[in-house]
Structure formats: structure tokens, C-alpha cells
């Protein structure tokens, strides 16, 4: 099979243009466009988050995002798929990640968005650091555990 040339995959250092990604999956054949955006929060376990910084292993992360889009297409009949991740500083309230999918009926687009974000969290080579007033911390997605279990044995 291979990757669908119509999937829009981006890792960018600027604000995510959500309308652009939704428009990229828009089609006269689609009856449904679902989207999900992960936005940065101002608190973590009661601590105020001053800033969030994302970094990516860009070529690997891009390749992983493309494969996740393809996996979604193999699972559901989708018309358009878009995934975008922002890196660098992401101010509170803005999207760090945005996914969109379109389909003929709504079930597929909604399920695909859930799948896309779950898969991105589990495996894509992107890291977030939270900066607090009194320190900083690299975060770890709980979903990464399954990836590590299947991959960390040999090293």
C-alpha cells in the first residue's frame, strides 16, 4: 500500500492553523469532519505552568505521523486525514497537536481522531518540558509504556 499522498502531516514552530487542517480534509464526498486539539494547560498537579516547550526528532516523528495516518486509513474508510504538531514554546491555551479526519458518515471520522491522538501519544518522537516557577520537568506520556514494553528488551 504505502502512504496516502493526501494526508497532511506537519511539524511546525508556529501557531497551528486549525481551520487549514480542517479544510485540508474537507470534501464534497465527506459528510463528517472530526477534529481533536491538545492544548497546553496552565496547571499540573496544582503547580502553575509558566511555559511549555516541545522538541521533536523531526524526520522520525514525521515518518511516524505518516504511518499513523496510514494505520487509521487501514482501520476506517476515511476521506481526508491531517495531523500537525507544534514544537518550540507553546503558550497556555494554544494547540500543541491537532488532528482532523473526514469520512462519509460520522462514526469513522470520530473514531479516527481518537485513534490518531492515542497513537501519537504512545509512540511519536516528541517531547514536552514543563517549566514551573520552582523547576522544570520532562513529561512522560502514560501511553508510551506500551511502546517501551514492546521495544526496550534488547538494549
Amino acid at each position, binding site marked *: 500500500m504505502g502512504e496516502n499522498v493526501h494526508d497532511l502531516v506537519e511539524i511546525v514552530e508556529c501557531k497551528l492553523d486549525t481551520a487549514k487542517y480542517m479544510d485540508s480534509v474537507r470534501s464534497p464526498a465527506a459528510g463528517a469532519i472530526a477534529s481533536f486539539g491538545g492544548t497546553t494547560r496552565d496547571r499540573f498537579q496544582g503547580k502553575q505552568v509558566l511555559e511549555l516547550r516541545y522538541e521533536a526528532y523531526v524526520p522520525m516523528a514525521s515518518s511516524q505521523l505518516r504511518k499513523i495516518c496510514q494505520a487509521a486509513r487501514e482501520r476506517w474508510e476515511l476521506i481526508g486525514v491531517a495531523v500537525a504538531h507544534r514544537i518550540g514554546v507553546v503558550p497556555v491555551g494554544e494547540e500543541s497537536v491537532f488532528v482532523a479526519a473526514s469520512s462519509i458518515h460520522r462514526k469513522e471520522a470520530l473514531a479516527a481522531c481518537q485513534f490518531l491522538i492515542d497513537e501519537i*501519544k504512545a509512540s511519536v518522537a516528541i*517531547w514536552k518540558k514543563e517549566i514551573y516557577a520552582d523547576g522544570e520537568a520532562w513529561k512522560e*506520556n502514560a501511553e508510551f509504556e506500551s511502546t517501551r514494553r514492546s521495544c526496550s528488551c*534488547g538494549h
Partner: protein
Amino acid sequence: MESQGKENDNVVVEVLFFARAREIVGVSQMKLELRASSTTRDCMEELLSRFPGLEEIKSVLIVALNHEYVCEPSQLKHGDEVALIPPVSGG
């Protein structure tokens, strides 16, 4: 001549460090020369001996070889790109 022969047998790989691994090592990227037939596990061992601070996160790292996670030790060839992947937190 003998040393040149040895060098020809060696492989030079590019090693990339991200997030906490980068902070521990102090650089984001380096070339690493390894004996011929070295695997990703040999590469990790060499890195651990050069940067003992990596022991702290060794148990949670995954190794990526040319943009793919490798689950079993894989033989390295000249020019390969090896990356130390700490727990991801994208999304």
C-alpha cells in the same frame, strides 16, 4: 597500514540525543566510531561508558535506528543514525 586496515573495518554512526538524554550528554548529536559488526546494544554500551549519567535513564530509553524503533540488537553499518529516545510526551 595496520591501523588503516582497522579503521576501514570500523563503522561510524551518527548518534542523536533528545530531551533528558540530550541534557545529560550535553550535546544533541555526535559521531561515534565502533568496531565492525557492532550492534545497537554495543553502541548503547559505548555511550554508557562515555556518559555514565545515562545510567539514570537507561531503563526507560528506546533506541531508534534510522527512524525506526529497534527492539532487538541490530547490526550497525557505516552512516547509520542511532537515536536515544527517552519516554515521549508529544500530543
